[in-house]
């Protein structure tokens, strides 16, 4: 029973980029799992390895210079890293698909939006051109765009509308998993609210699981069931929303919350995290967060913390809790 509920399982995944400047250790030994219909937020700042993780799952890490150097990605029990290119192409778009960050550049400017949606359908389902177009029209209506606009080109749409088209393409074949990489970052707040609402509705209707990549803890609180916080290629804290928001353990997560100006509370000063994100070519020894950590001890500088389960389902990577 347990195995059928589990949709995606990532074990000890590491992805590195081999560049002239050295080895960029973008993702280091991460593991997490995602159940059917569940939404998980993957939160972190620029360079934390969120997008690389997503590309790893999709099999889209640019190679060279990128390479998955270890671990397993199990989708419905099958290791995607062992799948051939052809198998991956059959999976992508049908079983799992991706919503990219920037709707302005992820659509093809010289194809109509209808054609772009129908393309996915025709690739994965044996439908005639006419039937595929019909289905594309239905999907367009589903994301709130009138079907008459099928024959328009991306430049005729606004940013929010373009992101709806991207969502329509991702959902066209009712995938089991959607990876959304900062789907609303480029949008205005009122449009962001519309798009998040739409994604939530569709997810409920279709029972799709989602991995939502974002830097916005507010968006996560709004849409996700559980959350993983990434720092320097590692998941430093993971758990249910209650675990992470109410019972914050890791100093980095605490720092993230302290950095946010609050709408409901009056605070005179923010409590930022000192220093900067480490260079992934030259990660610090021991705990990668130790140079910025307010609770840094001598042992943090030499010994790397391992994943510790502080309460059922709540994991932290910090020596204080080992």
């Amino acid at each position, binding site marked *: 029973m347990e195995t059928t509920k589990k949709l995606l399982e990532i074990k000890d995944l590491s992805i590195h980029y081999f560049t002239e400047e050295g080895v960029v250790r973008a993702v280091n030994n991460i593991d997490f799992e995602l159940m059917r219909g569940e939404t998980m937020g993957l939160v972190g*700042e620029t360079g934390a390895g969120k997008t690389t993780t997503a590309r790893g799952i999709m099999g889209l890490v640019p190679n060279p210079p990128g390479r998955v150097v270890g671990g397993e990605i199990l989708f419905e029990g099958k290791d995607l890293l062992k799948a051939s290119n052809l198998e991956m192409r059959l999976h992508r778009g049908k079983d799992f698909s991706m919503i990219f960050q920037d709707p302005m550049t992820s659509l093809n400017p010289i194809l109509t939006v209808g054609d772009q949606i129908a393309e996915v359908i025709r690739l994965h389902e044996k439908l005639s051109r006419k039937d595929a177009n019909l289905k594309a029209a239905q999907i367009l209506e589903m994301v709130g765009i009138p079907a008459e606009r099928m024959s328009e080109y991306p430049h005729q749409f606004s940013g929010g509308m373009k992101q709806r088209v991207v969502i329509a393409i991702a959902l066209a074949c009712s995938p089991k998993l959607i990876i959304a990489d900062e789907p609303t970052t480029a949008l205005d*707040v009122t449009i962001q609210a*519309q798009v998040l609402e739409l994604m939530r509705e569709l997810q409920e209707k279709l029972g799709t699981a989602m991995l939502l990549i974002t830097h916005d803890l*507010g968006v996560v609180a709004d849409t996700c069931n559980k959350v993983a916080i990434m720092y320097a290629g590692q998941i430093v804290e993971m758990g249910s929303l209650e675990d992470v928001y109410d019972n914050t353990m890791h100093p980095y997560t605490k720092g993230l919350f*302290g950095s946010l*100006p609050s709408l409901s509370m009056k605070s005179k000063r923010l409590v*930022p995290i000192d220093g900067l994100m480490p260079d992934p070519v030259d990660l610090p020894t021991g705990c990668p967060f130790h140079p910025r950590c307010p609770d840094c001890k001598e042992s943090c500088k030499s010994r790397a913390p391992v994943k510790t389960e502080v309460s059922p389902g709540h994991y932290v990577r910090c020596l204080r809790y080992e």
Partner: protein
Amino acid sequence: MSNTLIEVQNLKKYFKTNHGMLHAVDDVSFTIEQGRTVGVVGESGCGKSTLGRVIIRLLEATEGKIFFKGEDITSRPSTLDDRRRMQMIFQDPFSSLNPRMSVSQIIAEPLNIHHVCKSKEELDKRIRTLMDTVGLAERFTNAYPHELDGGRRQRIGIARALALEPEFIVCDEPVSALDVSIQAQILNLMQDLQEERNFTYMFITHDMSVVKHISNSIIVMYLGNMVEKSDADELFEHTLHPYSKALLSAIPEPNIHKERKRTILRGEITSPIDPEPGCRFAARCAYATEECSHCTPELEEVLPNHFVACHHVRTINGL
């Protein structure tokens, strides 16, 4: 209160386009007191950046007046001295710095133009002090912008704006391009500088939580119009205009216990080109009536020192 530093009266900025006149800023008036921060919020295309640029005269106003310390600066050409007293911090630390100039050259440029320093030694010393003020280590003196990360680049932009010891600084989304932990560092720096030197800020942003954190008073803009204006605390306590309400409720908060009643706005921003008379927000407003679509609402004082431009503000809020 005669401490008014900036006064803006009926400011308009129209752009000529192929399709007609684009009303970027339409009839905006407000004042900024010395040492205070005015936050200007709104979504893309609402005219907030244009407003900032017109005030420091990077753009010429179409109509209206701007007073700096009581002197009408729109009636005469912009002088070197105007530009010394008013500076700007730009949104994008990636494109607002000349990639072929080193950090010290970038900071030195305004000092050289205004002949502030008599000797090379004095200039170097001044640059070092400025870098120190904004928290840039001395080792970056000869670095180029591409070698630095976003937070440090934004610090260069701030150092450059501070170089001439201005009185008024327009900050156009200074933290939007930065990660949250860096954003907090920059916001703290800007607040410290204000306390120390009594700077006056106009803080342009789309982020309601940032604007609440940093401002004393707030202006909400929609399609070139000012729709609401009041003190920061008052605005968040009694949000009156339907657009401000929607803007506020659209923000996802990092709090999982807060029950949220969301008003999701339907539709999108309409075109600011040759707008018809009437409330520009009417097309997206849940309370819009006949009146809204042909009669432009005036800004009126609904509560003490709290101005709103909406025909139905009293009925909506039960006032």
